[in-house]
C-alpha cells in the first residue's frame, strides 16, 4: 500500500472514533427507518393542497422575500466598507484591522434567532426586528467573505493606483472592487437565499412572513396548508438562485 503512510492510518482511526462517538450522541440509527410507514401516512395528509388561501400566502411570501432582501442588501452595504478595514492588504492600521475582524466575528457568532429574540424586547413582534437581525448577522458573514476576496485580489491594479498619486482609499477602491465585483455579487445572492430560510425560522418568534404561517399551520394541524407553504418556499429559493445566476452572468 504505497499510497498510505502510517500517520494516515492513525488519522483514519482517530476519525473513525470521532464518527462513532458522534453517532452515539446523535442516536444515529438507520434501523429506525423501519417505521417509514408513519412518514408516508403523515405526508399523505398534506394533500390535496388547500389552495383557498393562496393569495394571502403569496402575500406572506412576498413579505418573506422583502425581509430577506433588505436583510442581505443592507448587510452588504454596511459590510462592504468594513471589509476593506478587515483585509490585511487594504487596512492601513494593524489595530483597526484587528478590531474590525473581532467585531465581524462577534456578529457572525450570534445567530439571527438570538438577535431576533433580543430585538423583540424593544422593537416588538413583526418583520422589522427580523430584518435587523438578518442585517446584523450578514454584516459579519459578508464582511468576512469580502475581506477574503480583497486579500486574494491581484495587487497590480492597487499598485498602479498608488503610482498615479491617488489617495489610498480611492486607490484601494478602484484597484480592488472591479476585480472582485462578480464574486461579491455571488456571495450576496447566496446570502439572500440563506436569508430566505433564516426569515422562516424568525417566523417562529413572530417575525412574520410565510415562515410564521408555516409554523401556525403546523401547530394547528392544517397540513393541507403546510404543503402550500413548503411549495411557495421552494419556489422562492429556486427563483432567487436563478435570478442571482442570471444577474451574475450579465455582470461578468
Amino acid at each position: 500500500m504505497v499510497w498510505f503512510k502510517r500517520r494516515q492510518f492513525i488519522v483514519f482511526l482517530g476519525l473513525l472514533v470521532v464518527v462513532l462517538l458522534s453517532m452515539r450522541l446523535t442516536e444515529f440509527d438507520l434501523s429506525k427507518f423501519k417505521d417509514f410507514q408513519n412518514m408516508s401516512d403523515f405526508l399523505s395528509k398534506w394533500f390535496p393542497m388547500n389552495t383557498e388561501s393562496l393569495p394571502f400566502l403569496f402575500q406572506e411570501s412576498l413579505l418573506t422575500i422583502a425581509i430577506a432582501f433588505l436583510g442581505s442588501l443592507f448587510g452588504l452595504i454596511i459590510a462592504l466598507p468594513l471589509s476593506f478595514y478587515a483585509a490585511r492588504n487594504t487596512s492601513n492600521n494593524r489595530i483597526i484591522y484587528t478590531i474590525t475582524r473581532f467585531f465581524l466575528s462577534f456578529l457572525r457568532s450570534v445567530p439571527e434567532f438570538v438577535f431576533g429574540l433580543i430585538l423583540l424586547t424593544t422593537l416588538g413582534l413583526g418583520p422589522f426586528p427580523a430584518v435587523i437581525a438578518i442585517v446584523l448577522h450578514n454584516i459579519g458573514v459578508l464582511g468576512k467573505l469580502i475581506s477574503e476576496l480583497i486579500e486574494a485580489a491581484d495587487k497590480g491594479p492597487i499598485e498602479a493606483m498608488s503610482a498615479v498619486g491617488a489617495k489610498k482609499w480611492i486607490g484601494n477602491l478602484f484597484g480592488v472592487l472591479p476585480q472582485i465585483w462578480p464574486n461579491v455579487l455571488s456571495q450576496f445572492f447566496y446570502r439572500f437565499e440563506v436569508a430566505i430560510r433564516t426569515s422562516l425560522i424568525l417566523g417562529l418568534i413572530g417575525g412574520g412572513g410565510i415562515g410564521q404561517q408555516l409554523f401556525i399551520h403546523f401547530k394547528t394541524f392544517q397540513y393541507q396548508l403546510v404543503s402550500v407553504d413548503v411549495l411557495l418556499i421552494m419556489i422562492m429559493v429556486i427563483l432567487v438562485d436563478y435570478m442571482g445566476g442570471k444577474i451574475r452572468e450579465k455582470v461578468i
Partner: protein
Amino acid sequence: MIKFENVSVLYPGTTKPAIQNVNVSFQKGEFVCVLGKSGAGKSTFIRCINGLQPVTEGSVKWDDKSLSEMTHKENLEVRRKTGMIFQHFNLIPRMSVVQNILTGLFGYKKSYENLLGLFNSSDRMTAIEAINQVELTVEPTRRVEKLSGGQKQRVAIARALVQNPKVFLGDEPVASLDPGTAERIFYLLKETHNKRNLVSIINVHDVVLAKKFATRIIALKEGKLVFDGIPEEFDEKMFAEIYNY
C-alpha cells in the same frame, strides 16, 4: 533631478538587501535602461524612485528634497508627476479603455470627483489626446480585458500620459509582449520621451532593445550597481558579468 544617495532596501524577514548602497543620479532628457538578472533588484530600484518602495537606508532625492522628508501630500505629488507602466499592465479590469485612462487623473482631482467619475470636458479631451498619441485604434468604450497585450500596454502608457508626467518609469514593460510588439512599444516610449522632454527609467531584460533605445544604461547585480555608462560601453564582457555567462 533624481538622486540616490547610499540607498539600500532590506525586505522584512530577509537578511540580504534587495538593493545595496546605490548611488546614482538622473537628469532631464535621459532615457535610461536598467539591466540585470531576475532578482537583481531592478523592480525594487524602480519603485524607490516614486516612493512605492520605502528605502531602509540612504535617501532618494527629488530636486534635492528627500522623499522620506516630504509630507504625505508632497509624496502624492511626486507620484502624480511620475508615469509608471508595468509588466502585467495593471489596468483596472471590467472598466473601459477611456475609464482606465481617466484614472491617471486621480492625483489631480478631489476624492468625490474620482469616486463619482466627475470629469469635465477638458479631462476627456486630455484622455482622447492620449489615446491618439499612443496610436490606440480600439473603441474607447471597449473593456480592457478584451484587448491584446500590446494594446493593453498602450492603454497603460496613455494612463501615464494624462498624468502629465515629468518622469517615466517602466518595470519590465515589454517582458510579456512578443518581440515585434515590444519594439513598437519601446519606440512609442522613446518618441513620447523626446516629445515631452522627460526622464525615463526603464527596466528591461532585452539587452538589444536597451542598446538600441537607451541614452544611458545602468546595470544591477545582486542589488549592487555594477555598470553605469553609455550603451556603446556596455560590451559582451559586461553582458557576461551581469548574466553570469
